[in-house]
């Protein structure tokens, strides 16, 4: 497969809070159209990396180029333009609690898309349909939705402006296995249909195996990037433990064939 041009290029990224160094010299890139998973132990700075990539945290050193612009230094109108080409799904959706689901989706469409009237309502319905929310969810408030539905609604809002890059912070955390598998499928389908590049922080080995093209592992303040297969054979102790642990075996990563007698995944 030819390698398409990267949409995100991280070079020499250094993040520190006070004296605590989180990342020290990260170099990697995200290609157009791929799904990249970010994994790492608790406190290894996965969410921090995601937040730095979307420009919520300013890096202490190095730079992050998103869609050809340095996200750490663009300001004002240019920054807003870049921001509109990215969508972010926060862990619990981060929906505006005073607005209904439909209004949450309409907010970016109205503000940045300058869309109004009948088309606004139609596009809202399309987004709600695409993420698989039930129809009556449109007029509900976030507090009336379940966790899984809040994530779907958050995804619909992140997709409102048809971004090129989608950032997901632990999209399957807190979902039951059925819901998590459905969410994985949804991400895969959207990425194919909309040509999205996806960056997702996850702890979910099933997600990694089923939808991620490449995986960035944060270990010892550095990053190791590779496909699932190449990481399986990586020498780093933590990486080995991660991909060969009991849970990895349960997710059928550890070199076992799909024909093993472990129960099949619910989605399959």
């Amino acid at each position, binding site marked *: 497969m030819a390698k398409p041009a990267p949409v995100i290029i991280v070079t020499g990224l250094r993040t520190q809070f006070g004296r605590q160094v989180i990342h020290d010299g990260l170099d990697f890139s995200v290609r157009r159209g791929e799904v990249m998973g970010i994994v790492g132990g608790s406190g290894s700075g996965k969410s921090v990396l995601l937040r730095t990539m979307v420009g919520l945290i300013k890096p202490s050193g190095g730079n992050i180029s998103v869609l050809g612009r340095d996200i750490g230094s663009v300001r004002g109108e240019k920054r807003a333009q870049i921001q509109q080409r990215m969508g972010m799904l926060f862990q619990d959706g981060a929906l505006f609690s005073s607005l209904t689901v439909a209004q949450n989706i309409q907010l970016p469409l109205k503000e940045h898309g300058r*869309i109004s009237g009948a088309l606004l309502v139609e596009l809202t*319905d399309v987004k709600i*349909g*695409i993420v698989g929310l039930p129809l009556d969810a449109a007029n509900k408030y976030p507090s009336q939705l379940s966790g899984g539905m809040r994530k779907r609604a958050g995804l619909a809002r992140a997709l409102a402006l*048809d971004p090129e890059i989608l950032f997901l912070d632990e999209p399957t955390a807190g979902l039951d296995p059925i819901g998590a598998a459905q969410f994985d499928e949804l991400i895969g389908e959207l990425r194919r249909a*909309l040509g999205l590049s996806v960056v997702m922080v996850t702890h979910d080995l099933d997600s990694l195996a089923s939808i991620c093209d490449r995986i960035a592992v944060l270990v010892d303040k550095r990053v190791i990037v590779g496909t699932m297969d190449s990481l399986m054979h990586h020498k780093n102790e933590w990486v080995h433990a991660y991909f060969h642990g009991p849970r990895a075996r349960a997710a059928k990563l550890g070199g076992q064939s799909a024909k093993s007698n472990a129960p099949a995944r619910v989605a399959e």
Partner: protein
Amino acid sequence: MTALAAPETENGWLESRQDGDHLLVRLGGSLTTRHVGAVDARLRALDVANAPRLEINLNALTGLDTAGAWLVHRTRELARKGGGEVRLTGATASQLALIGVIAGHARPCPPAPPPASSLLRLVANLGVATIGLGAIARDLVSFLGQTVVALGKAVLAPRRVRLTPLLYHMEEVGLNAVPIVGLLSFLIGIVLAYQGADQLARFGAEIFTVNLVGVGVLREMGVLLTAIIVAGRTGSAFAAQIGTMKVNEEVDAMGTMGLDPMEFLVLPRVLALLLTLPLLGFFADIMGLAGGAVMTGLALDISLSQYIRQLQTAVPLSALWVGLIKAPVFAFVIGLVGCFEGLKVDGSAASVGRHTTRAVVGSIFLVIVLDALFSVLFSIIGF
């Protein structure tokens, strides 16, 4: 994929040609969320529903996203419903796939329910608020009962009172409030003296300014002001502390360990207030009188010894007691409302803020109502 991600340099455009019963609609440029507005309006203006044969040509498209795909899909469906024959030409495979996805998910959501009429809403809100107020009053009375029981248990078995949290809260509530209470009381003393001096000087009765300051500060202002400051400072802190513990499920954790939140959370806080508010009130009295002394000295040339002599003759000791006897009552109410609202928090961060506000408003309201009742009571018994 590349067609979808093409740079959006060109706005979307539309071209239509009627050729007998054949209607050709050519779409071009970038049909993306930011650029579909004009095309949408022109598509709606076209009479596709009555076109026997419709051809939608996408040859000239440079970009297509869900918004553009929706327009294509909507137009196609409209023509089909009208009984016409529709052809989609010039679309790339990825564009067709995207339109297919939209077609698979397009279902109109029910419209938002219309808002009720404003008069109806007003009546409904009034009813809800009244019932809510009644429920709060009932719960507060029941909480009062629980607190009294907890206090009673503590009196019967003083060992149940944990000394460390009690002392911690006494420091927080009492000692740390000394500067602000002192400063504000001092200023109130100055204000009373200044206003009194201004009015009484007209009758040549300047010396009675001392009576005004003495009685005003000792009977009313000292303790009332302290209670209001403490309600704002401590009532809110109690509600926020206990509310945060509710959000973190710490209060539930206590329950599973068989620890009584009344004994662990409410009792030390209420006791700390009961013990420190009278002391703070006394301190406020002194500072208020000091403020009066400074102002009468400056504005009326009344020396300190004159001031003290006048205080001794004009202000009975009972004025001090009348003021201070209210302090424990205010303390109890402030602690009660603060802890009550804290325990009412229901798990979301937003409700911590709401209940903290209600704790402050509620305790200040009750303090002033009680103060008014005390005034009536004292005037009846002639105290």
